[in-house]
């Protein structure tokens, strides 16, 4: 890992990307897109959790938006109606979500198809309860307004400009945390679970506990994103986490590459740009295009978009694009994660990765 860090592409690319990302909200650069940028950051946070749960552990969740919704509503209710400090409300929301995910963890006994249906049902239940609003907390379909902004000391995150940096700061922290989870013993255990649960069990890995852990982690990510969204939009309503949004989250994870932490940014970016900029008034066309993308990726490159591009390039150069151009594109992308092939070659010659 540490040697990979020294790869020259990574050295060149990361600062450039970071500087570009920092410049986005300035008016002379991409100022009009700072709202979009913030939304992409929020989606990235949820998608990373989904990547950990789906890509690395090999499970499936079609109810991730439910946790987003729980985080959003707890933050909104506690900070607006109960008048708690937003940060405290966010913390409580995350704890509640963790508890809910822990209790729901029992559905992780299910696998494959059944897990997919069970999580879909859970997502639907949470959404429906928010719509029904029996107790008068969630405000029904209209939702809650008058939510305060987040603030540190006297510094309030009351402008789009400031919130962009807040969201991306937290997003970056979460990406780094996830990266270290993946590269730790836990990450290797998760990948073993993905490969074969029986084999992992026989190696002394407590499969259910690891699945539960990562489920809770991904739920907390979604909750944090939901809380941030509530304090960003100053509005919480069931329209923000409909059951179909869980599917869009899966699409983001798939586009970015299911087993790729940094790919989440690209997946979230692609889907959010499509939904919020290109086809903003054409919800049905969104479904067609995103559904087609989803199907095509999984039919022709089930291992994930970017892994497939790399492999296809190594085989015969894809899409009639001359190899030299292709190599440049792929290097630019994979510079972030280090060139896969070189990585394996290195760890083969040197000591094992751990």
């Amino acid at each position, binding site marked *: 890992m540490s040697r990979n860090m020294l790869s020259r592409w990574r050295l060149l690319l990361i600062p450039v990307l970071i500087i570009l990302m920092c410049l986005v909200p300035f008016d002379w650069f991409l100022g009009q897109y700072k709202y979009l940028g913030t939304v992409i950051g929020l989606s990235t946070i949820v998608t990373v959790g989904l990547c950990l749960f789906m890509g690395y552990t*090999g499970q499936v969740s079609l109810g991730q938006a439910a946790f987003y919704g729980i985080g959003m509503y707890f933050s909104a209710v506690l900070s607006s109606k109960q008048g708690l400090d937003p940060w405290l409300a966010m913390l409580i929301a995350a704890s509640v979500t963790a508890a809910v995910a822990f209790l729901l963890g029992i*559905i992780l006994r299910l696998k494959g198809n059944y897990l997919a249906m069970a999580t879909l049902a859970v997502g639907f239940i949470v959404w429906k309860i928010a719509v029904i609003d029996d107790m008068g907390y969630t405000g029904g379909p209209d939702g809650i307004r008058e939510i305060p902004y987040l603030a540190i000391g006297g510094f309030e995150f009351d402008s789009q400009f400031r919130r962009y940096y807040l969201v991306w700061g937290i997003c970056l922290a979460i990406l780094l945390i996830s990266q270290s989870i993946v590269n730790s013993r836990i990450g290797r255990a998760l990948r073993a679970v993905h490969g074969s649960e029986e084999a992992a069990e026989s190696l002394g890995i407590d499969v259910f506990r690891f699945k539960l852990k990562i489920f809770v982690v991904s739920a907390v990510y979604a909750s944090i994103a939901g809380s941030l969204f509530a304090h960003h939009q100053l509005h919480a309503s069931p329209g923000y986490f409909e059951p179909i949004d869980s599917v869009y989250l899966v699409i983001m994870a798939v586009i970015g590459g299911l087993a790729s932490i940094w790919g989440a940014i690209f997946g979230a970016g692609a889907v959010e740009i499509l939904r919020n900029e290109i086809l903003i008034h054409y919800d*049905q066309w969104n479904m067609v295009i995103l*559904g087609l993308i989803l199907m095509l990726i999984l*039919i*022709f490159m089930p291992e994930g978009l970017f892994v497939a591009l790399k492999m296809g390039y190594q085989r015969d150069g894809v899409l009639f694009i001359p190899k030299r151009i292709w190599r440049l594109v792929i290097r630019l992308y994979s510079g972030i994660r280090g060139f896969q092939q070189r990585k394996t070659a290195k760890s083969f010659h040197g000591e094992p990765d751990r």
Partner: protein
Amino acid sequence: MTWEQFQQYIVIGIQDGSIYALIGLGFTIIYAVTNIINFAQGEFVMLGGMCSYMLVDSVDVPTLPTVVIALLCAAAIGALIHLLRNRRINRFILGLMIVLPLASIPLVLFLYGEFASVEIPVGLASFLPVLMVGAVGAILYLLSIRTARRPSILALIIITIGAALVIRGIAGVLWGDKMHRTPLYWEERTIDVLDATVHTQVLWILATMVIVAILLQLFLSRTMLGKSLKACAINPVGAGLMGINPKIMALIAFALAAAVGGAIGAVMTPKVGMTYESGFLYGLYGFVAASLGGFRSPIGAVFGGFVLGIGRALIIGVDWWLFNSDYKDVWPMVILVVILLLRSNILAEEERLG
């Protein structure tokens, strides 16, 4: 709840129950033969309703669908040619595969406005959708699931979800987001049975359900093709050794399930109406029905459908504590999760073997 009200709720329950039973039936057909849970099953129902609407109301049609359907036909024929070149196929199957794409040709003709001035009898308008949707099911199988390279369960789940999105999106583009209804089959709106007032269309729905279930049962138990389908469901490898091609059986299962969905969709549209988003919820309910019946048995799915339909109607009727019409959609999902958990051991075993 008085006795009269109780009877009225039972009527509603029978209506919904027949609908859920047939959708559940579709789930079990595909699942038994291929071990795939088709998340697009609900969309077939929606498509059935929408096609019948389009046939009844074939004036003022956009030209885009013609192009889409023509493309789909072309793709199906392409797939057919591909199959012919590579595999030996028996003659009957060959005939079927030519007939299914051809079945969608009436659709193309209608869309060209060829018959725009001709009054289409309602009976025809509800029978043609069966063929059309059946063809869509077959095309879906050929284009996506058949084409996928060594798909994992996760990939198959996501592919069918993508297909559901695409179908829903196309329906939204074609028919807009209004609710569509077709005319009732009988002039008379209601008749009295005991103390309850029964909508005549409910009788049609019930009759369709009974007829389709009986025909399916006869098909599975009396014809050679149906028996091969059953053999494939019980033991695909063994069936393969006996000269049955499991892939062809999977194709037939998809076409059959889609046709069943299309049939019930066409018959229920005069009573309940159809929007492009209806499919999602119907699919979930069909899955609950299938899970109540144990996933693999068509009779079980019919039974589960009626239990679900009547139970849901009674929840609306009871109107006590959390059992009221607000929560009518929540309880089935809770029951679904509970059933899945109770059966998790059996299901895990099945998934490991299958």
